[in-house]
């Protein structure tokens, strides 16, 4: 006779969420951007993506092996890091430089601090900044995009990213469809927004961070006298807001923490764009806020259920 009463320990219900599932969703959300990169910059960008992904996975495997820890390449997080890094690079970058970036992202930023979930800044972003500081000329060498306005591509080999181009070179449509210079994944705004919507629908990311980020950036552009829509569509704001700032490990878990985090990101992005000597401020602002996350979380600890706030001056 079969037992009718099953005794087992909790949890009794399990969702099918796993790291692998989440990472797969992020990869799916990034696919349109990767395809757009191939269309805009040609098949070279596919080669660059393949190099970055392969290097990241290989380095993750090797470093886990050397440190005598379990292999974690199955959770696909290295693939996401490689993909994000590749989308943040200009298309004609030397593959060796891209591989060095993968080394920084996976070995230095991720595995040295204990692997997935332990990194204190976003690996792909940190790698991009290391590359930007180390190889400024290679990292700011923008190949012209397919169908970019002629005014931007007078020089046959390079074209300006919209942030340093003269006003009026690019229309909003150019920016939306990616007819401008830039990193391979950041130019086409439409596909990034599509990816973001997919992630929100799949509940992989909460819409708080991207929305507040973009709203703050728009508000700040108004305050400092820039065109808000142009600022949001150009450069890496969308890529950063949707895919970089929402990284689980390096963004706050509390609701108000997320808001503070996103406001900081948006504020510093526009401040750096307007007042620093670099054309782009997205990576630096997100990196700065990443470092502040532990403090933000400590400041926004939610009230425990049933806990009554003590009055000032009350003893015990």
């Amino acid at each position, binding site marked *: 006779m079969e037992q009718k009463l099953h005794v087992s320990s909790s949890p009794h219900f399990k969702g099918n969420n796993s790291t692998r599932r989440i990472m797969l969703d992020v990869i799916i959300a990034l696919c349109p951007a990767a395809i757009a990169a191939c269309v805009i910059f040609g098949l070279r960008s596919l080669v660059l993506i393949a190099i970055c992904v392969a290097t990241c996975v290989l380095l993750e495997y090797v470093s886990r092996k050397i440190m005598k820890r379990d292999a974690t390449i199955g959770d696909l997080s290295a693939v996401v890091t490689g993909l994000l890094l590749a989308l943040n690079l200009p298309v004609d970058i030397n593959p060796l430089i891209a591989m060095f970036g993968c080394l920084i992202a996976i070995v*230095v930023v991720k595995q040295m601090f204990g692997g997935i979930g332990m990194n204190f800044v976003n690996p792909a972003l940190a790698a991009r900044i290391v590359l930007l*500081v*180390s*190889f*400024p000329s290679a990292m700011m060498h923008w190949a012209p995009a397919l169908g970019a306005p002629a005014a931007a591509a007078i020089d046959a080999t390079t074209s300006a990213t919209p942030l340093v181009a003269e006003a009026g070179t690019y229309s909003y449509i150019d920016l939306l469809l990616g007819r401008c210079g830039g990193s391979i994944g950041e130019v086409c705004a439409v596909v990034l927004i599509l990816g973001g919507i997919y992630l929100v629908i799949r509940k992989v990311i909460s819409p708080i961070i991207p929305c507040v980020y973009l709203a703050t950036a728009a508000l700040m552009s108004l305050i400092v006298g820039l065109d808000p829509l142009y600022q949001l569509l150009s450069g890496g704001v969308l890529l950063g807001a949707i895919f970089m700032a929402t990284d689980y490990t390096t963004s706050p878990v509390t609701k108000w923490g997320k808001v503070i985090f996103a406001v900081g990101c948006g504020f510093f992005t526009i401040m750096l764009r307007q007042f620093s000597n670099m054309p782009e401020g997205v990576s630096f602002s997100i990196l700065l806020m990443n470092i502040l996350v532990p403090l933000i979380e400590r400041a926004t600890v939610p009230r425990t259920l049933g806990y009554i706030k003590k009055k000032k001056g009350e003893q015990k």
Partner: protein
Amino acid sequence: MAKTSLIKEFTKGIVKENPVLCLVLGTCPTLAVTTSASNAIGMGVAATAVLVCSNAVISLLRKFIPDKVRIPAYITIIAGFVSVVQMLVKAFAPAINDSLGIYLPLIVVNCIILGRAEMFAGKNPVLPSILDGLGMGVGFTAALLCMGIIREFLGSGSLFGVQLMPVQILIFILPPGGFFVFGMLIMLANKLNSRAGKKVKTSPCDGCPISENCSTKTCEKTVKEAAANAD
């Protein structure tokens, strides 16, 4: 017996109690001047010279300096030697003077030198103090040289000014790269020390902000007693 302990005073500064990598003293010049190997050697040699001379003089005067004003007295002695070294460097190696800039006079406040005066020269006879200064100086120079070589090779693709690599990873000669290399070297030094089965021995009062005015020195005593019991 006496001979081995003298040798020990000299060698302890090189690996076991390396001032930069194990005691983490003198971090400012370590990070600031190691953008090239020749800078690192210049800084190391200048600091070693000051360290040996000041250790010797402070050790000689240790019975005459009143306890209450010993820090100003030590600083005065150190500053005197730094001035001498600075004038010598200006006269005989103006290139190094230019590249070290403000960090050369700042040897006065290098905590390795004051630290050794306070921890060692103020309590010990002349010969061990000189050897201690020499060992610490060599350890300091070696650590600086390691950092200088790594940072110059990766950051400017050269060694002692000779171009070797076409690729330059600029971040290594910028401050973040300095901190990164510094961290890596500390990791290596800890690894070496732990592999040899020796722990980095420092007095618990080192680096304690109130150790100067601490009359009881209980921390030091308890550790000493524990060590005696263990023996």
